[in-house]
């Protein structure tokens, strides 16, 4: 319970209101719903990281990228994987350079150089390799830090993140504590393959991005697939919604909807019927069993009419 409250009034608020976040994100081609815009706004105001969760392909990573683009900040990305450790996430001493330095000292030993001088020297900033987390903290210019797929690291490694997430600082034994000059916007994404620790969750605002509703998805298709007609877009998202309601291993994501819409456009199809849909299902669905299930369901939909 030692987390001190992060400075909430940064004075450098990036956004005016949730509405301005929404408009801003729209202008860079990301269509948020009210929840997304509201949470991004709050994260900025409260100086808290956002933990973004949801099915794959719903634009979690894209959200961070778009916010970076909107605020004109540099995006620093830490891709998580099993076995990630602090030398990859935080910082590392540049051993090779240190060694060279020591050897150079030996050559010049006659000058009466002392070991303590070297020691002080080789554990200083020029010998420090900054990794994404430290880089984000030390950045002078505005940055957006994206910690991607945080559920992939082990529970123990999660602890690495805690100091940074609550206090925006990194402690390096040889150098002391490095505090952030400005509070970066931090996004953590998770595909929910395991339960994240309470400590991590407590420090974050939580945002669940689900598949968008019909209108929003249609809008997304219309903006991201230039040249598509309104009626085709409408049909596409309706069919996708229909497929999502089946029990599948992997429901089609937004990016797959977009791929499908592009394909239909390339094929010069004006309106989708059951046959076209079945033939192009492999773009929406990635498992053979899912494709079979959906194909069967689409072609036998007449049966349900007589309910």
């Amino acid at each position, binding site marked *: 319970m030692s987390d001190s409250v992060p400075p909430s009034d940064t004075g450098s608020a990036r956004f005016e209101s949730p509405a301005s976040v929404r408009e801003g994100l729209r202008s860079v081609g990301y269509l948020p719903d009210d929840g997304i815009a509201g949470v991004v706004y709050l994260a900025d105001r409260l100086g808290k990281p956002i933990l973004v969760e949801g099915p794959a392909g719903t634009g979690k990573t894209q959200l961070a990228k778009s916010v970076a683009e909107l605020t004109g900040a540099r995006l620093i990305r830490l891709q998580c994987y099993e076995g990630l450790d602090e030398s990859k996430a935080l910082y590392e001493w540049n051993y090779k350079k240190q060694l060279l330095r020591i050897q150079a000292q030996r050559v010049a030993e006659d000058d009466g150089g002392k070991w303590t001088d070297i020691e002080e020297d080789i554990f200083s900033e020029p010998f420090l390799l900054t990794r994404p987390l430290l880089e984000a903290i030390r950045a002078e210019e505005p940055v957006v830090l994206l910690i991607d797929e945080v559920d992939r690291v082990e529970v123990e490694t999660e602890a690495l993140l805690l100091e940074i997430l609550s206090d925006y600082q990194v402690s390096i034994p040889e150098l002391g504590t490095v505090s952030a000059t400005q509070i970066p916007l931090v996004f953590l994404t998770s595909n929910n393959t395991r339960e994240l620790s309470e400590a991590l969750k407590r420090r974050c605002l*939580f945002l669940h991005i689900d598949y968008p509703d019909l209108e929003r998805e249609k809008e997304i298709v219309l903006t991201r697939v230039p040249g598509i007609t309104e009626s085709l877009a409408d049909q596409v998202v309706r069919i996708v919604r229909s497929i999502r309601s089946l029990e599948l291993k992997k429901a089609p994501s937004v990016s797959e909807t977009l791929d499908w819409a592009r394909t239909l456009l390339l094929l010069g199809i004006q309106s989708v019927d059951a046959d076209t849909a079945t033939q192009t299902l492999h773009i929406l669905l990635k498992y053979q069993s899912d494709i079979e299930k959906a194909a069967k369901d689409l072609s036998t939909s007449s049966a349900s*009419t007589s309910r």
Partner: protein
Amino acid sequence: MSLPVGVGVPELPLGTSAGLLESLSGFVKELRNAGIPVSLTENLDAMEALKHIPLEDRDAFKYALAATLVKNNSHWKTFETVFEVYFSLRGREYHLVDGVDDEADDLISDLLGPREGESSGSADGLTHEQLAEMLFRALMDGNEAMLRAIARAAVTRYAGMEPGRPVGGTYYLYRTLRQLDLDAVLQRMMETARDQTHDELTDLEDRLAREEYESRLDALRREIEAEIRRRLVADRGAEAVAKSVRKPLPEDIDFMHASREELVALRKAIAPLTRKLAVRLARKRRHGRKGPLDFRNTVRHSLSYGGVPADPKFRYPRPSKPEIVVIADISGSVASFARFTLHLVYAISSQFSKVRSFVFVDGLDEVSQLFEGVDDPAEAVARINAEADVIAFDGHSDYGRAFLTFHERFADQLTKRSTILILGDARNNYHQAHVEVIADLKYRSKAVYWLNPEPTSYWNSGDSIVRQYAPYCERVVECRTLRQLEAFVGELA
């Protein structure tokens, strides 16, 4: 550093009344009662967040609370219900829009006014048919404001709510929906849709139209439910209503007494749960234990330390995977428990070297083959009832006979690596227990576990004879919810 209490409640967010703070703390309390873990820091965060949110924006208010208080998506539904109860009615007080409006009929006529001449003046005179007609038209146009108004009118008219009457909201919901007869409405909408297009609707179009209408009807149903809830809150106060609508989280639903809706929630919850469990177990297997010292490797690495074995190397651990034999009672009330357990066990079958499953009522049948080559265990589980031959006599559970059959046919295939899971409530209908069979199974296998879906306090009451079997089991485990089941299976693998 400082005690959390000290950080406590010092500065109220500017511009908020004590009233909001009060209902916020009631709200958080109710969330905790419903099983959502809300820590003190999160509570403070929520208050901090409210400072920055325009309070008249109800959506922003809701998302601010959700983002700070609820950190697990499966808790969202619970959150939403509690939110509705605590922050819907009090609209006027806190300028959260959407107060209660009993003059819904007037509202309807207002909305209708310019378009329809016929319903002039007060709308009290609306007949049942007229309301139904309006409902139909609003649904066809997807007119949300109108639907909301109609939902209100319908509740006023049909629910027959009486102040102080201690009935749950579902009763009123049922009464209202029965009068509206939404199935017939859907039918009519489909017919109209078919008439409107000049060509015949293709199957696909037909299906898409139907889904669209169904989703609108769902929205209407939700609106009616919310309306009823609002009125209940007005009548009885938030706390009482919150208590009556409180539902267990999916992982805490009791298998034996789950309603149909809850079973759906359970089925949805089981997929992410098994995925997480499998990941956790695989990791445990890889990282959990160190194998024995690898002498060769250690010596090789000692060369870089001038021959000093400073960095001992260990062999990669290869713990043997357990072999699982599931024997499940699938009669009546315990059936859904057996299904969920089978589903879970097969979903993580990669963590076991082999899984075999048997189901029984008074006869016993192997169902392992149903799961072979099937991607989705749920599918196989669904087929068990139709395809397993489990009834030998009268169709009442007979544990003794089932165990005897198992022993006769399969006992010689058990090895010291097999772990046997017996699923059932041990309600034997006063048949013979045949305890000696279990004793022999225990002798032949590595361990016998008994998972009982009944609360511990019911064991050994009536015809439950779990006590007789217990001495021959490694452990008898109470397993009423997904949470308990997950914990047990996690230990097992």
